[in-house]
């Protein structure tokens, strides 16, 4: 019996099923190969055809998203998307989920999520300069919530801080639908020279494949490893382990890769993420139309006795696969040696479009590259609007009692963890490193300057899953609209977005309905506001005991400021400034935080949106900021107008400052104060600039109304609310910390 055969147990139906492959999929493999696969090949197919790698359930829908735009240099399909920011520079960014690992081990799960997204970005030749994180946890009364939140936040900080990439913003939302399925989505943005962008392509037959970074262990290998009898003895030892992140090695890897990219050695490069060595090599070959040949015995191992199967499927962190120009091996080794890292030739680019793996010279895998990539099945899964959805959307406002003490409601909302200050979180993230941070976390969007230019980039992540649950189509539109509005509020014009689509099981027609609706909504939002999708990620199967999470698309959008010095923060600046509301308030309460917190209701339809109006309001805000007449700007989102005004008063990193507001609208007071009508931005201006602002608003078609004046120590909303700002500030600032004590 040869060395290789010992590792190739036979394929029973159980073994196939335990690899997550259906009988149909197995037959498809047999057809593509023209024979039965061996055990290792089955493993390779199972990871490459997994939902995570192949997008088999989502691909059909994702195609409808607009991916083109004047600034787009690279749309979806590569490790990250790229947009042009002028001056010969490009912004490279992507978001990715690490939901399940973070639930199992919050610190390490979140940490390795950050590690993975960083590699996705620097693999393209970009130096990461800012990260965001979008988090969803269960309700605070779930005993695990605190533990998970503390672990995840510490893990994100622990990794990102150590690598020296500032985490400048994000999202944090609590809802019982996430009790057993938390969401941890990590985003990173890097800057590259336009002329030095690297792609994952295995070009040039004969070029060496070079493995760099950490050694390979049994981390994260699909549980299926144990399904075969051959492995049943030492099962305990071989148990797939949680991946532990090593940010120090990542930092060295990052510096070494960027140093190498300055030289003329690299042909292609890709990080080893999900499905490790297998997907990095197969995908690079697929993109280049070549083949690859790997000698697995050359792969640096951390553990003894690893089989070809394990080596190919390991998801050990902090590893990259390079395709180098033949003859430059020594140069590559020298650069990595300088950073105390190994670089080992483990194979080469070959002719014939075959994915081949050898183990001590014996062939263990021989699969046509296309069979693994474009050959993966694509499903057109059934779609069905859930029964009872009409009932969920029904909201009889006449049955919702209007509270008497509206000041108390404002206090309650500012105390809600979904609205309260997130400082407890971002205090644990280094948001200053690289000395670019112009607007730190706490504002509508973070702003970083681009050294050597006058420009800046703004970043935000948004997605209200309550809206998506009530109406996934509208929720999809709103996710895009809110992100763009947050950018407009600091003065940035959107360049592109990346999205992370977190859903339940695609095998459920109701979930696929939500998915398809959200995508269509996002598409319309993108088209309406002129923002292309340049990269993204889909995370299905976020459900426990058959209960899926609310559909949760997260949109991370990047915008450009031509003059970063002009950027604006949400906080009132000086007494006497006028408070102006751009946009219009409608009587809408469906899906609001108010309805949930005060009345315990998650019902109705989310706020209405007209993309033309949205665009007009955003354009007006942008133009006014660019003219330099806006002193502060803050969009109205969760908690409505009253909460937005309170946030402007509280002052964030600046001095607290009250305001006196007059209301006129004829509608329920709670809807006026706490309804979440879209397309609204609160700005403050000097009185003398009102005429200019009105002109801009008229030209853009944006409704505008002066609603009050900055000043005093209280927030007064005549005749409904009157509270000292210091009191609001103390409630808002201490909420999270108090709950975590």
């Amino acid at each position, binding site marked *: 019996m040869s060395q290789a055969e010992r590792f190739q147990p036979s394929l029973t139906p159980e073994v196939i099923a335990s690899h997550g492959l259906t009988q149909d999929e197995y037959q498809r493999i047999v057809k593509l190969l023209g024979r039965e696969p061996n055990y290792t090949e089955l493993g390779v197919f199972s990871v490459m055809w997994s939902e995570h790698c192949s997008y088999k359930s989502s691909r059909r829908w994702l195609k409808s998203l607009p991916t083109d735009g004047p600034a787009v240099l690279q749309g979806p399909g590569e490790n990250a998307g790229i947009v042009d920011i002028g001056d010969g520079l490009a912004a490279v960014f992507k978001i990715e989920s690490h939901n399940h690992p973070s639930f199992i081990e919050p610190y390490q799960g979140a940490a390795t999520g950050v590690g993975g997204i960083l590699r996705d970005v620097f693999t393209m030749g970009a130096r990461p300069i800012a990260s965001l994180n979008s988090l969803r946890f269960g309700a605070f009364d779930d005993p695990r919530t605190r533990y998970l939140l503390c672990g995840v936040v510490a893990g994100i900080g622990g990794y990102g801080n*150590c690598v020296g990439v500032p985490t400048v913003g994000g999202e944090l939302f609590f809802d019982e639908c996430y009790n057993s399925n938390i969401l941890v989505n990590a985003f990173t943005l890097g800057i590259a020279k336009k002329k030095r962008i690297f792609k994952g392509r295995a070009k040039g037959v004969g070029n060496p494949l070079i493995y760099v970074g950490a050694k390979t262990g049994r981390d994260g290998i699909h549980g299926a490893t144990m399904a075969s009898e051959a492995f049943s003895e030492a099962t305990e030892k071989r148990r797939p382990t949680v991946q532990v992140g090593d*940010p120090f090695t990542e930092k060295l890897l990052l510096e070494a890769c960027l140093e190498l990219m300055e030289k003329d050695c690299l042909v292609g490069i890709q990080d080893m993420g999900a499905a490790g060595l297998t997907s990095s090599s197969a995908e690079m070959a697929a993109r280049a139309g070549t083949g690859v040949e790997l000698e697995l015995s050359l792969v640096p191992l951390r553990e003894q006795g690893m089989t070809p199967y394990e080596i190919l499927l390991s998801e050990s962190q902090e590893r990259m696969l390079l395709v180098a120009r033949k003859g430059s091996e020594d140069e590559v080794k020298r650069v990595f040696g300088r950073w105390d890292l190994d670089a080992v030739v483990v194979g080469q680019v070959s002719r014939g479009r075959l994915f081949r793996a050898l183990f001590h010279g014996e062939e263990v895998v021989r699969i046509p590259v296309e069979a693994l990539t474009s050959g993966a099945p694509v499903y057109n899964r059934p779609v069905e609007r859930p029964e009872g959805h009409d009932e969920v959307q029904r909201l009889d406002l006449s049955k919702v009692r209007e509270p008497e003490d509206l000041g108390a409601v404002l206090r309650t909302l500012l105390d809600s963890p979904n609205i309260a200050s997130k400082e407890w979180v971002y205090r644990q993230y280094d948001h*200053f490193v690289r000395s670019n941070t*112009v607007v730190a976390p706490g504002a509508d969007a973070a702003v970083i300057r681009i050294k050597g230019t006058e420009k800046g980039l703004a970043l935000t992540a948004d997605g209200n899953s309550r809206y998506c649950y009530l109406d996934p189509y509208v929720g999809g539109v709103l996710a895009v609209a809110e992100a763009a509005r947050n950018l407009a509020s600091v003065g940035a014009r959107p360049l592109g977005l990346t999205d992370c689509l977190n859903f339940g099981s695609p095998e459920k027609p109701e979930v696929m309905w939500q998915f398809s609706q959200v995508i269509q909504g996002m598409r319309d939002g993108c088209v309406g506001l002129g923002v292309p999708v340049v990269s993204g990620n889909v995370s299905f199967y976020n459900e426990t005991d058959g209960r899926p999470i609310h559909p949760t698309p997260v949109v991370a959008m990047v915008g450009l400021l031509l003059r970063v010095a002009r950027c604006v923060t949400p906080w009132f600046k000086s007494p006497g400034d006028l408070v102006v509301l751009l946009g219009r308030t409608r009587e809408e309460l469906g899906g609001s935080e108010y309805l949930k917190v005060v009345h315990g209701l998650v019902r109705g339809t989310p706020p209405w949106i007209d993309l033309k109006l949205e665009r007009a309001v955003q354009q007006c805000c942008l133009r006014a900021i660019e003219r330099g007449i806006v002193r502060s700007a803050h969009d109205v989102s969760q908690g409505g107008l009253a909460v937005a005004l309170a946030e402007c008063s509280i002052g964030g990193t600046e001095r607290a400052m009250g305001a006196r507001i007059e209301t006129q609208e004829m509608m329920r007071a709670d809807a006026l104060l706490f309804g979440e009508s879209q397309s609204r931005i609160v700005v403050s201006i000097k009185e003398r600039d009102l005429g200019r602002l009105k002109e801009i608003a008229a030209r853009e078609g944006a409704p505008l109304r002066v609603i009050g004046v900055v000043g005093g120590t209280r927030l007064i909303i005549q005749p409904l609310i009157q509270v000292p700002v210091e009191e609001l500030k103390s409630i808002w600032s201490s909420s999270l910390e108090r709950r975590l004590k």
Partner: protein
Amino acid sequence: MRWGVIVFPGSCDEQDVYDCLKHVLKQDVEFLWHRDNLKNGFDCLVLPGGFSYGDYLRAGAMARFSPVMRGVVEFAARGGLVLGICNGFQILCEAGLLPGVLTRNSSLQFVCRQVYLRLEETDTPFTSAGKKGQLLKLPVKHGEGCYYADPDTLERLRHNRQILFRYVDGRGKNAPGANPNGSIDDIAGVCNEGRNVFGLMPHPEDAAEKILGSEDGLKIFSSIAAACEKREREVRVG
């Protein structure tokens, strides 16, 4: 004058220091690699922030054995100026160039925020451009910044006036919430007895431009530059 910024594996803020010196203060500055022996011709060496060797074991514990550190110790012994920021401060303590040690923040959490520092002593090359009692607004960002020294050492530090900065509130007063890490005696920065080696937890390089929210960090770098120029003049005249 010439500045050297030492790069350890895991340093993160070396570029921030470099950019601040080079582009804001128009200084002559060069990166120095941890594995090389220290070259001659520098007036001030900066050990930047970051996570040298991942901060594994203890922050600064492994970096202090880097080849370049032998030269740093000799340089300091000859009276050369050495500034350690954050991780650099931790390394200087581990290397014995500064007294005491930096331990885990009392909150057990990494902390990133703006703090106020009160300048306590001006008779050092690092603080001479400032006024006693002056406030600086700088960011901190560290997980192990809680300064500790045993009672005798602490007494000596006070007696020799080696405590150069303390954490205070916005009005310059010692206050419970002002100290971000639980440091003993609210200590944010100390120098050695010779007053030529200085360690500081907050980051002056990240507060060196208006657009970043504060220019107060320049005080420290311009003090050093002024001190070096004065020295050069004295050497030329003498």
